[in-house]
């Protein structure tokens, strides 16, 4: 029996001596890089408002109506909320009442009105009960249930040094702690007060602007030194996320007989794709994976189908254990494709990222380990697709059918989920869990947040499966096809 290393060597020699295949692999790497170049060069976000960055480095939404005063030193602030109602835009200047789950009204202590500055807040929400939130990403639940005139919520925020504690109460006398957080970066003087925010609501495949109005009473500040009057301000009127909000309700505050009515829109939360449409992702930069995918599918298919013209007898005579021949081919093909994909992605990400940033495009951040995962994952995606093509080529014996089948099963589901926004979420979810297109999860950098209601679909870059799990789906298809190919190759007359 021919030793496996010799079979590998033979297959490698076969591969590298066909100029077209080597060119195909170079083209694979080039296409990944060229599309990154194109995406980077063609983008232009000069003059767009800067994306606010939270203390953790992530992009955030930080626009809301803020009724505030400076507060120096330790102190606490208390309020009662008797109403929070929202309106949803259903057309230009056409607002209709509706429930916005994460509409927010409550108290906030914030390190100034700069967007992205540290804060801690306690609030009532549209349908998520009382929450204590800080620094955009952290969220702790308090009393459940909606707020109304018969179900008033009392909120208190207490600063003591770095520590901020949130309390809630149903009657203003019996208080329970919701949470305590430490804000290291907080200065001695902060802005404290009431806020109202109302994020865009999910409607079908997109989002629509909303506006919320809350009725407060019993405002009390204890300890600390306050300024001399309350000011109502829109935080972040010119932010990327705020651009789509209704034009007229820019927020307002009115006071009558001890009750304060505040109207506001916007959100204090981590940014997601739908709320930050102008931002790019590494997955966008790696769109060249598509043409590259077609190239590796063609080469992968030809690597076996050309043998069927006349060479397969020679190959099988040289290594009579057919499944070993197939394994050797898969190993060589996978390794070569992986290397090409690795080179392409490793160049494309920093290059495309640099060009995009030069052109003023904000990219959703990715840690080095995430970037490494994407580079390795993209290379693995291409390698796995080439092996799937090899298996399909073995099964079909004809390159035309194999190339079309593999391209279609990977690209068509992707086109359906990533290009057609109106396909229902249930269907896209199903397509990106079960079809080979699931593998594109490996390029995801955007993070979904439970406290942000948004469109978390593949169209927006959110895949239902974890990165490696998505790749595993494609790998599963490749392995099953390869096993079927081995069986067929074994049974069939060559």
């Amino acid at each position, binding site marked *: 029996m021919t030793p496996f290393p010799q079979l590998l060597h033979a297959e490698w020699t076969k591969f590298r001596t066909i100029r*077209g295949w080597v060119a195909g692999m170079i083209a694979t790497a080039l296409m990944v890089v060229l*599309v990154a170049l*194109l*995406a980077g060069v*063609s*983008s*232009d*976000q000069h003059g767009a408002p800067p994306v606010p960055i939270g203390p953790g480095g992530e992009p955030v939404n930080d626009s809301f109506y803020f009724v505030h005063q400076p507060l120096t030193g330790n102190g606490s602030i208390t309020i009662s909320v008797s109403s929070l109602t929202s309106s949803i835009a259903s057309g230009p200047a056409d607002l209709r009442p509706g429930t916005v789950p994460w509409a927010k009204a409550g108290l906030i202590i914030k390190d100034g009105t700069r967007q992205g500055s540290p804060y801690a807040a306690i609030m009532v929400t549209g349908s998520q009960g009382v929450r204590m939130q800080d620094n955009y990403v952290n969220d702790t639940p308090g009393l459940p249930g909606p707020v109304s005139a018969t179900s008033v919520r009392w909120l208190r925020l207490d600063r003591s040094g770095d520590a901020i504690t949130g309390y809630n109460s149903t009657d203003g006398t019996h208080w329970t702690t919701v949470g305590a957080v430490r804000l290291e970066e907080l200065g001695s003087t902060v802005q404290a007060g009431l806020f109202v925010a109302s994020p865009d609501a999910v409607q*079908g495949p997109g989002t629509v602007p909303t506006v919320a109005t809350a009725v407060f009473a019993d405002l009390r500040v204890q300890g600390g030194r306050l300024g001399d009057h309350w000011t109502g301000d829109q935080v972040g009127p010119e932010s990327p996320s705020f651009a789509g909000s209704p034009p007229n309700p820019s927020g307002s505050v009115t006071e009558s007989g001890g009750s304060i009515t505040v109207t506001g829109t916007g959100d204090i939360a981590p940014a997601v794709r739908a709320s930050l449409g102008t931002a*790019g992702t590494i997955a*966008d*930069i790696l*769109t060249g994976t*598509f*043409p590259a995918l*077609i*190239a590796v*599918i*063609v080469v992968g*298919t*030809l690597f076996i*189908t050309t043998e069927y*013209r006349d060479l397969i007898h020679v190959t099988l005579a040289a290594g009579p254990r057919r499944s070993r021949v197939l394994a050797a081919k898969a190993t060589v093909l996978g390794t070569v494709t992986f290397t090409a994909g690795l080179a392409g992605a490793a160049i494309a990400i920093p290059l495309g990222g640099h060009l*995009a940033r030069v*052109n003023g*495009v904000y990219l959703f951040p990715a840690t080095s380990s995430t970037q490494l995962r994407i580079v390795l994952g993209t290379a693995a995606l291409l390698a796995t697709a080439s092996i799937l093509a090899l298996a399909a080529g073995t099964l079909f014996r*004809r*390159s*035309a*059918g*194999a*190339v*079309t089948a593999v*391209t*279609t099963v990977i*690209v*068509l589901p*992707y*086109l359906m989920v*990533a*290009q057609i926004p*109106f*396909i*229902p979420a*249930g*269907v896209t979810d199903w397509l990106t869990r079960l079809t080979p297109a699931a593998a594109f999860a490996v390029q995801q950098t955007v993070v979904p947040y439970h406290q942000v209601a948004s469109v978390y679909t593949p169209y927006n870059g959110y895949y239902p499966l974890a990165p490696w799990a998505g790749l595993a789906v494609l790998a599963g298809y490749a392995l099953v096809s390869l096993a079927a190919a081995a069986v067929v190759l074994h049974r069939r007359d060559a």
Partner: protein
Amino acid sequence: MRLALRSEWTKIRTLTGPRWLLLAAIAATVALSVAVTSVMTCAAAGCGHDTTKLSLTGVQLGQALVVILAVLVISGEYSTGMIGISLTAVPRRAIVLTAKAITITGVVAGAGTIAVLGSLLAGRLILPSHGFTPAHGYPPLSLADGPTLRATVGSILYLALIALLSLGVATIVRDSATSIGVILGLLYLVPVLAPVIGDPHWQRLLQQIGPMSAGLTIQATTDLHNLPITPWAGLGVLTAWATAALLAGTLLLRLRDA
């Protein structure tokens, strides 16, 4: 020419492959259209869907099989060496390719008519039970409706033009796998690439010149002013692609040794 045509027709009808591919194209087109129309719902008036276009979504899958069929018409001859016999029988090479083009147009238009009408019928039967009712502003799909008729006829022409584009590319490239890779790349690349092009002007231009993105505008019946290109002009772009590919193919076929 008449003889070459008769000969090409004999070639295509004496193989079982093309028959199965045409049946598969019809089945795939109708199946995807059924699947898509089955998952769409319309809860209230003005839900913003183009029901004609939805019903004809299957064309996007069916075209893949049309591509295989058209590519194999010429690359199948190159892979066995039969092209030598064909050109010996009909030495005027442009005539050989023209005869192939006419034959493939005929069979694809025939199968395409069944596929497209089947998809439309599926939409007509399925959509009303998913909220696409006259009350919501969606009368049942009908060929009596001008834009729907245009979309239907246009989709058949679209499939035929895809076949001609494929024939042209395959004549240039000769190898079937590479041809199909090139064609699918040409078709799918623009829709995949366009969203990452930041400049809206370039993005629009890309969608105007992409053979699939431009060609499929023929299926749109609503929101016509938002299309990157008008429906018939879009089909014209695809025609230009197919013509260019066929001309380049003819030229190379004449210049190269068979």
